[in-house]
């Protein structure tokens, strides 16, 4: 973040003129935070919005200005991003590209119905605990042998119980791994809409404070701030509490121009006229009543297939025979085949 002092001052004056002292203090403290770090704070991953765009492009991810802006803000504010949009528009890819662009490891957690803490956060390793107690039996006897009564023995053991409820016996799952990681990571919580409401509630602590509470050990706070992405296909609505903790980003199917750019960057050297036809036809298919609409990666697959077959002119027959990378249901293929003339119309 490059802090232009004049702008910041402008803000302070305006906000001070208004009322809300509270707001004023928040801003001023933020300004000092920025200036305290000089031109580029250590925590700042991106200097400006343009840099986000360039870095994403270096990972072959074509990002719109809105996407770059939201990513920039989320990283600067250390807030999670809730990415919404239809399947296959590059929600997951965005998180992956950011991880690659920043050289951070990506920790991914796929959500599904029935996902709970023991699969997402941590689990006690009972077998290991038991094995240790067996092996340490003599040692335990030693400790207890000095004591006079049963109550004393229990107290004595209690003094040592930390040994068995320590991090050694915790099996880390993705969320805890992200919190404990010594190097900063990108955490991707994929398809959060598929999880149960309980899991969503349990995420709240993690998302607002980047900390997790394990009853036997205590609260663990993130060593480094992870960049968190949550993706949703809108299978169900997210709770207000979760939304409040995130920054929101909606990604739609790209327009024809952008999709052409995306295919071009993945398949350099593709014929422009063919490319335009491919992308236009796919865009029209998305408007049809299909069971599953073709996504961007399927456009790329189709283009790749056409290139491999060395086809440079699209005809109804060729489309009808090469639909497989694009459409995954027989009913969809039939529907498209019936409507080929309209799809091909210029």
């Amino acid at each position, binding site marked *: *973040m490059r802090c232009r002092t004049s*702008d*910041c001052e402008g*803000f302070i004056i*305006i*906000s001070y*003129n*208004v*009322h*809300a002292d509270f*707001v004023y203090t*928040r*801003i001023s403290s*933020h*300004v000092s935070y*920025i200036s305290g770090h000089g031109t580029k704070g250590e925590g700042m991953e991106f200097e400006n*919005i343009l840099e986000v765009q360039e870095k994403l492009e270096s990972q072959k991810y074509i990002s719109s*200005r*809105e996407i770059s*802006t*939201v990513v*920039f*803000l989320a990283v*600067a*504010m250390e*807030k999670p991003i*809730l990415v*919404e*949009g*239809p399947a296959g528009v590059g929600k997951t890819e965005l998180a992956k590209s950011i991880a690659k662009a920043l050289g951070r490891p990506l920790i991914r957690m796929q959500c599904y*119905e*029935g996902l709970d803490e023991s699969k997402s956060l941590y689990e006690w390793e*009972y*077998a290991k605990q*038991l094995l240790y107690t067996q092996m340490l039996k003599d040692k335990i006897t030693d400790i207890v042998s000095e004591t006079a009564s049963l109550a004393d023995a229990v107290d004595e053991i209690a003094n040592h119980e930390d040994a068995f409820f320590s991090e050694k016996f915790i099996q880390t799952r993705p969320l805890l791994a992200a919190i404990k990681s010594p190097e900063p990571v990108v955490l991707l919580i994929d398809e959060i809409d598929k999880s*149960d*409401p309980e899991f969503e509630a349990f995420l709240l602590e993690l998302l607002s404070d980047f900390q997790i509470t394990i009853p036997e050990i205590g609260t663990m706070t993130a060593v480094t701030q992870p960049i968190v992405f949550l993706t949703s*296909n*809108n*299978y*169900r*609505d*997210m709770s*207000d509490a979760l*939304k*409040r903790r*995130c*920054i*929101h*980003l*909606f990604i*739609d199917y790209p327009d024809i121009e952008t999709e052409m750019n995306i295919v071009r960057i993945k398949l350099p050297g593709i014929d422009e006229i063919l490319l335009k036809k491919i992308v236009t036809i796919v865009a029209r298919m998305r408007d049809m*009543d299909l*069971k599953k609409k073709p996504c961007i990666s399927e456009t790329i697959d189709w283009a790749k297939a056409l290139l491999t077959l060395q086809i440079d002119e699209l005809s109804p027959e060729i489309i009808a025979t090469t639909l497989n990378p694009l459409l995954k249901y027989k*009913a969809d293929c039939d*529907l498209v085949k019936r409507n080929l003339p309209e799809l091909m119309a210029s």
Partner: protein
Amino acid sequence: MVNMTLRFVNCCRAADLRISTAEVLDVVRQLTLIDPYDEFLFHTVLRTNFAKSHRDQDLFERLYTLFFHEMKSDLTEAENTVESDGFDAVIAELTKEMTADGDAMKQALIDFLSGSPLGYLDLINKLHKQEELAAAVLKSNMTQLSSRLDVMLKINTIKQKVLQFLGSNHAVVDDSVTASIETAVNRRLNSAYDLLTQEAKTKNAGLKKIAHSDEHYTEIGHVPFSSLSGREIEEVRDVIKQLVKKLEEIATLRYSVAKKGAIDVKKTLRRAGKYLGIPIEIVRKDKPLRKGKIVVICDVSGSVWAMARFMLNILYALQECFSKVKSFIFVSELAEVTDVFIKKEVNEAIESIMTDAPIEYQAQTDYGMAFQNFRKRHLADLDKKTTLIIIGDARSNYQNPQDHILKELRDKCRRIIWLNPEQEKFWADGDSEMALYKDHCHEVRACGNLNQLIDFIQELVL
């Protein structure tokens, strides 16, 4: 700029867009990170923080345009010009003349004219949500319409008053600016009029719309439920019986698989205690079965019932697959029929619903009233694990559709699925309110023949 943002937030809240203080603080902080004079960035910051689902974005856009573009002159506190003086004079005169009777709507309109839309947005929002009274004598859909008409008339009165004033007060308002003041006033009043007549459409990007179906049965599969002959009804029943059996088998399979999951170390060790620590009995983790709660609201008027009876038949035959099934029927009034299904055998229950339920079968179908009834008496039946299935053609006889209630229901349950026995091409014509209702559903399906019904049931259960 903070002040302006805060006022914008107030307007958003008045128009029912929920914004928390934390979000406002976020925006203020984020504005320091970007160049706020670049409108694209400013707009992005506001949108990413205030409209946190795609569904809210349209409403947000509308308010944003209204506040930052249409009400613009109020944002730049320019110096007094002949024009603004004239404008002020007009407002002052209007205030003097029209607010004497203490009418809130008139006051709100004049405020709107002078650049603060808050009061007006609030009143409009209340108006959009106005409910029909359960009238004792004559039922009508006029409550909302008449209130709107009232506002329209007031807008017209103000327009006339302004014209009169401008025409007769040459001394107060300079002639050179009369025309521009008139346009300014008209522009604002027109946008007030638009706000009144055009409700913001909710974008429903996640909506799953299914009109096609797989070919399960070639002949009987395509016959609409409403035109089945006696023999065909029997045939459909047989098919459903088979289907139910098949699905039950799959469900039982799940039960048996559930006992073969990963080893539950905790329980196994506990049992091993009995045998000197040797794990003789191995306990496996039960995989939780997917058992959602289902609430069905069912229109039992004519054509819909033909399909709904089969649907209810299947749901109750498959009760085992869900943790709870509750059902309600309505024509205009709503009644719960869950008990009937508990006491009687499924087919018997379905027959008796058509005669015994405490509703008036001859009444005109009224979806708005049915939703209102449901919200009043049975809202507690919905929770975040409930799937709400509505079976109906959404033909509400031009009564007030009250779709905002459906929106409230959406907030309370996991998913809303609407099954319409009519094919999609008929959804938009006549008295069908499908276009309104589908904005609040997670899934809408044409479900008028056996093939479509089978598709739906398989997806619901498996």
